[in-house]
């Protein structure tokens, strides 16, 4: 009955040989059933005996070339029953697919729990830190912002407006330690309605000194800002402390 090149039957025979407590004629009966099914031209969907000793699940192409996980269980031959064999067959998957499912399930678990680290940009981090700090003011115990936001994020430039009322000026520029004292970098623009000169400049948080250069040569202090005398060059400068309020 056994065919020389029938791999599936060979596997079944090998399995049944190593199983304990199998009736002596079980192997012969299985082979007879399979042979009968093949001769009839239709694979038997589920061939089982009345004595429930032998169960052989459907012969399909999938079973003809089983994957690494598609191994036979001992119960299939010694009383597992049709339902158990069918269940096992339905859950047969290849190894790559199983790994894929496991990874997907793990990723889904992380996403559901919110455990995956999220990389926040400095602006978002600063906003969240400010929110924390606000709640701190309301009496909620939180860690100080310094422990949450990186030093570089805290030193992100802040848009700062500089204004000078100089209606007779032909040009006004801003010089300060935030623009390397280069007036060409920061010219002020005259507002036609008010006649005032202004510029909005990104300035890093901290204390800065500056002045206006009117018409390219006249050193002019900001009347709205405190002033200080620079001991290096002996001139007066305006002072601004920049930071998020």
């Amino acid at each position, binding site marked *: 009955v056994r065919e020389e090149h029938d791999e599936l039957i060979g596997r079944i025979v090998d399995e049944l040989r190593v199983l304990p407590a199998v009736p002596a004629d079980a192997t012969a009966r299985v082979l007879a059933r399979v042979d009968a099914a093949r001769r009839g031209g239709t694979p038997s969907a589920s061939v089982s005996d009345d004595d429930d000793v032998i169960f052989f699940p459907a012969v399909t192409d999938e079973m003809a070339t089983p994957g690494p996980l598609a191994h036979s269980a001992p119960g299939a031959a010694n009383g597992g029953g049709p339902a158990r064999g069918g269940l096992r067959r339905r859950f047969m998957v290849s190894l790559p697919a199983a790994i894929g499912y496991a990874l997907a399930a793990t990723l889904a678990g992380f996403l559901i729990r919110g455990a995956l680290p999220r990389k926040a940009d400095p602006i978002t981090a600063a906003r969240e830190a400010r929110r924390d700090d606000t709640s701190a003011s309301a009496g909620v115990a939180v860690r100080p912002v*310094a422990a949450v936001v990186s030093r570089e994020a805290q030193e992100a430039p802040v848009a700062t407006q500089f204004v000078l009322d100089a209606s007779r000026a032909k040009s006004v520029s801003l010089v300060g330690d935030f623009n390397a004292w280069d007036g060409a970098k920061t010219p002020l623009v005259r507002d036609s309605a008010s006649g005032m000169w202004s510029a909005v400049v990104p300035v*890093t948080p901290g*204390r800065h000194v500056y002045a206006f250069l009117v018409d390219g040569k006249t050193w002019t202090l900001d009347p709205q800002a405190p002033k200080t005398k620079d001991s290096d060059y002996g001139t007066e400068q305006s002072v601004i402390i920049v930071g998020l309020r």
Partner: protein
Amino acid sequence: MRASRYAAVTLALIALPAATSRRAEAQGARPADLDSATAAAIAPIVQQARSASLPVELLYAKAREGEVQRAPVARIEAAVRALAARMQTASEALAPNPTVQELAAAADALKVGVPRETLREMRRRGRDGSLAVPIGVLTQLVVRGVPVEKASVQVVDLLQRGAVPKHFIALDERVREDVLAGKRPDESLDLRLKGIIPNLPQQATAEALSATPGNKRPR
């Protein structure tokens, strides 16, 4: 084929100056608008600072500041040399990894008389936060007339209590208003601290804990 080669060469020629300029900027190269005599005078100082891993752009800015104010080269050189020395002191006080803004602020603070021990203590109490604003406010308090010892103690205490830049900025603004109104700077500092300290994170934490049943303070 030949056309694509020409296109590649043209693109490279366009991109090269921009890349070179950006690299020079990152390395603190001499600004093109700095006078050659000034540049030559400060070159050894810049070289020394660079070998000590100090940000040389601050030195160039100080030189440029002198040129804008039409200071003589000798005075510019002296100012740049003094700044380099302060930056070295500041770098040691704010170790291990101060930012450029912190170094600039600390160099200004040293200039008005803030001791290096205060800077060291600020780094210790300020944890990982930027000290650019706290040091700047400390400098401004001293410039306004608050004794440096008093200002140092109070600023370090604020850092210890978890104060962040907005608290320091608020303190500076209120002291400034008081001084403009004729109040003494040191008295204003004492007064305004009473309004800021209750809003600090660690103060809020302590008050929240003391208000919790079972954590009542012993009388």
